[in-house]
C-alpha cells in the first residue's frame, strides 16, 4: 500500500514538472479569437483536477508500487492544463508509472510519467500517430491539446 500526498498548487521551480509547465504555459496563449474562449483563465486548474487526484490517491492505496516523483510530475502537468481541457482517465501501471489518456472523436492522447521517461503518444482517427519524450514533443503536444479542447462539448 502506498500513500502519497499529491500537490495541487503551483509547481515549485527547479523540478522537471515545473520546467515543462513553464515551457507549456505561454503556448496556451490565444491563437485567434476562435480559440480564445477555450483557453485557461489565469492559474485556475481544470475543474476535474481534484476528482482526478482523488482517483489517483485511491489507486495509490491499492497498488504495490507508485513512483512518487512520476506521480507528482503527472499531477503538476494536469494542474497546468487549460481549464477547457476535457477530463482524462488516469491509471497507475504495475511499474509504478502514471498515465493520463484522452480519447475522443479527434484522437487519442496518452501521457505517461515514469521513472524512465515522461512520454506522449498521439493517434488521430485516420491512424496518423507520433510519440516521443514529453519535453521534446511540446509543439505537437500543444496542437493535440488544442484539438482535444476544440472537441469538448
Amino acid at each position, binding site marked *: 500500500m502506498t500513500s502519497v500526498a499529491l500537490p495541487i498548487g503551483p509547481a515549485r521551480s527547479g523540478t522537471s514538472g515545473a520546467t515543462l509547465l513553464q515551457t507549456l504555459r505561454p503556448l496556451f496563449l490565444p491563437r485567434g479569437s476562435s480559440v480564445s474562449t477555450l483557453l485557461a483563465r489565469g492559474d485556475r486548474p481544470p475543474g476535474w483536477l481534484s476528482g482526478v487526484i482523488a*482517483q489517483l490517491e*485511491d*489507486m495509490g492505496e*491499492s497498488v504495490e*508500487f507508485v513512483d512518487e516523483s512520476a506521480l507528482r510530475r503527472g499531477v503538476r502537468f494536469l494542474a497546468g492544463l487549460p481549464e477547457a481541457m476535457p477530463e482524462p*482517465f*488516469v*491509471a*497507475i*501501471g*504495475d*511499474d*509504478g*508509472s*502514471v*498515465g493520463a*489518456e484522452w*480519447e475522443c472523436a479527434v484522437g*487519442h492522447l*496518452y*501521457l*505517461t510519467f515514469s521513472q*524512465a521517461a515522461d*512520454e*506522449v*503518444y498521439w*493517434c488521430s482517427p485516420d491512424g496518423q*500517430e507520433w*510519440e516521443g519524450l514529453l519535453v521534446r514533443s511540446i509543439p505537437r503536444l500543444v496542437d493535440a491539446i488544442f484539438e482535444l479542447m476544440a472537441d469538448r462539448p
Partner: protein
Amino acid sequence: MTADTSPVPADHCLLYRLIRPDWVAPDGNRPKSQAFSDHPADGALSMFLSDEMEAAGKTVADLAKLWPGYRVCGITVGQVRALGQQVVRDPIEEFPGHAAVRDLTGRRSGGTRAKLAKAVKWCE
C-alpha cells in the same frame, strides 16, 4: 523464474491479461493503456497462454476466479508479436500457462501500450 523449454507459442494461441478494476476505461470498452506496463519484478507483462490452460483443463472463468474483481481480456500471440513483443513461457505455481511478454527494444513505448489496449477483446 526461468522459462521452461516447451515449444514456442503458436501465433494463433490466445494470450489473456488480467485487468484490475481501476484499469478499465470509463466507457468499459477496453482497458486503459496503463494496464500494459511491465512489472518491475521481472520487467515483463504478465499474461496467460490458452494452449497450456486448455491442456490443464482450465478456462478463462477459472483464471478470473483466482483474482476476484479482475476482468480478463485476450489477444492472439501473433498480434502481440506484430507489436514487437516477445512471448516466453514462464510457469508460476498459481495457474497454468503463465507467460512473460517483453518488448524487443527492452522498453515498451506508450504507443505500443495504447495499441495493445485497443487490440485486446474482453473474454467474458
